[in-house]
């Protein structure tokens, strides 16, 4: 296929993942950006576009100043929460296609364990203001509360069980045990460990919940034409889409139900053509729900699919979260899954799927997703 009009991810970078980085979020972001630029073979001063999660504390202007970028041609951030990674890729890709920028870097640097912890009501609570007046007085203060409410309803509707959710965590841990960068590289997990772990907010148990991590990650995007002259095998963005409606208010289906038709239509392919998937596992049950709501399997079949090993790198029909995901590698709010989606196209994952023709990345259970393919 001709390169014209196509955009690729040409550089990926990350820092170490830890519980206490000992450095600023800005430093983490910059270290990841430098690693990604080095990976791509692009000099910092060639960057003319920057994008970030709106919750990221390092502004584009400050990052540009550190990189020595004197004329930042295009920048932006996307609000909501951690779930905007693929939306940023969609926007950056559109900017490059429109000629607004040539080299765009997307970055995230966060002290999610030693700094602001997203599992804390003190951090995420709205002090009873706005719509929070209708949830916080009754004890719903953090993202996990609303998501647990949806998970409980979905268990009721489809019969999926906590043990089946546990198999998501166990499978991802097995992937992390193959990935030396993963937080839980050297710690195995059994289904019994999961079932015996303490309840956090029912129905979520401890091992249903993502990690809290200090670290940074970055992506470099440019046109496919230019990508062909760079160091790495390009991961071509076949399609990217975002969705901004608060579907969780329905408490029955995830946002993927809305996003999926647009994503598949834009890609000109269907879920059966995907070889490997990274899915935003803030909580293990949502991997099951995403598999169903994106159409990889029928609604209500997700639990059995996971239980029978189909999301495992080791012989599964659709390996999921092959780096260990948010549950066992790091919680970089979708960034680490974007990196892994690229690795699967390059052929460099520690749990590499053979002959990947299409690599799927969801970064928010339907708030954003993309499909990466090799250069034809």
């Amino acid at each position: 296929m001709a390169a014209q009009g196509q955009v690729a991810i040409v550089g990926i970078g990350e820092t170490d993942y830890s519980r206490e980085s000992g450095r600023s979020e800005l430093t983490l972001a910059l270290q990841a950006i430098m690693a990604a630029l080095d990976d791509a073979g692009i000099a910092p001063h060639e960057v003319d576009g920057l994008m970030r999660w709106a919750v990221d504390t390092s502004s584009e202007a400050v990052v540009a100043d550190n990189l020595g970028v004197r004329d930042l041609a295009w920048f932006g951030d996307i609000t909501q929460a951690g779930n905007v990674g693929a939306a940023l890729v969609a926007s950056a890709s559109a900017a490059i296609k429109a000629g607004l920028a040539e080299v765009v870097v997307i970055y995230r640097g966060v002290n999610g364990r030693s700094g602001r912890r997203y599992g804390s009501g003190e951090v995420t609570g709205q002090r009873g203001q706005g719509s929070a007046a209708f949830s916080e007085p009754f004890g719903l203060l953090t993202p996990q509360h609303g998501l647990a409410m949806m998970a409980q309803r979905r268990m009721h509707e489809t019969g999926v069980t906590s043990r089946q959710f546990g198999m998501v965590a166990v499978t991802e841990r097995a992937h992390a045990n193959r990935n030396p960068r993963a937080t839980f590289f050297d710690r195995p997990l059994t289904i019994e460990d999961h079932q015996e772990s303490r309840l956090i907010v029912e129905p979520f148990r401890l091992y249903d919940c993502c990690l809290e991590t200090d670290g940074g990650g970055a992506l470099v995007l440019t046109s496919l034409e230019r990508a062909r002259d760079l160091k790495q095998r390009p991961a071509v963005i076949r399609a990217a889409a975002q969705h901004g409606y608060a579907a969780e208010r329905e408490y029955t289906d995830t946002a993927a139900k809305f996003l999926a038709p647009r994503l598949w239509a834009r890609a000109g392919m269907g879920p059966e053509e995907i070889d490997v998937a990274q899915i935003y596992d803030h909580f293990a049950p949502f991997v099951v729900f995403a598999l169903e709501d994106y159409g990889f399997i029928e609604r209500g079949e997700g639990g059995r699919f996971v239980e029978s090993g189909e999301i495992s790198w080791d012989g599964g029909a659709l390996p999921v979260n092959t780096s260990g995901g948010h549950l066992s590698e790091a919680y970089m709010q979708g960034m680490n899954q974007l990196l892994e989606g690229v690795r699967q196209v390059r052929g460099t994952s520690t749990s590499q799927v053979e002959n990947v023709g299409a690599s799927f990345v969801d970064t928010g259970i339907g708030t954003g997703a993309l499909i990466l393919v090799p250069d034809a």
Partner: protein
Amino acid sequence: MTHEVTNIPGVPLGVGELLPPVPEPDNQKFWDALLSDELRIQRCTACGELRHPPQPMCPRCNGFDHEWALMSGRGSVFSYVVSHQAVHSSLRERTPFATVLVELDEGPRLVSNLVDVGHDEIEIGMAVAVVFHRVDEAIVLPLFRRAG
């Protein structure tokens, strides 16, 4: 009826006192009605659509005009969660407790707590009815009890 605070294990009476709502112009009448022991939900006068939480515009017909429709106060548990970890320092003495999502017979869903049901007794579909729980002079919370 106004519900007196009682100390039932697993029942989160008092969470609302620790984390009170802050009424704002777009939802003040919801809270005002509760002071008179009435559960009223915003209803579009143009198309009749009920909406909650309150907001200025009807998402169905985009009308701004609305009234505050008196609800029967009856409904059922649509979903629930049980907080075992105190995610807020003020809740350390209160966990575990349940939060329910009640679907009113009229359709809208409200986040609330049950006043007479332990967190391990809750079932989806359980019939419930509103009780009015006074926090202070300015705030009454709509909580629910088992019905039928």
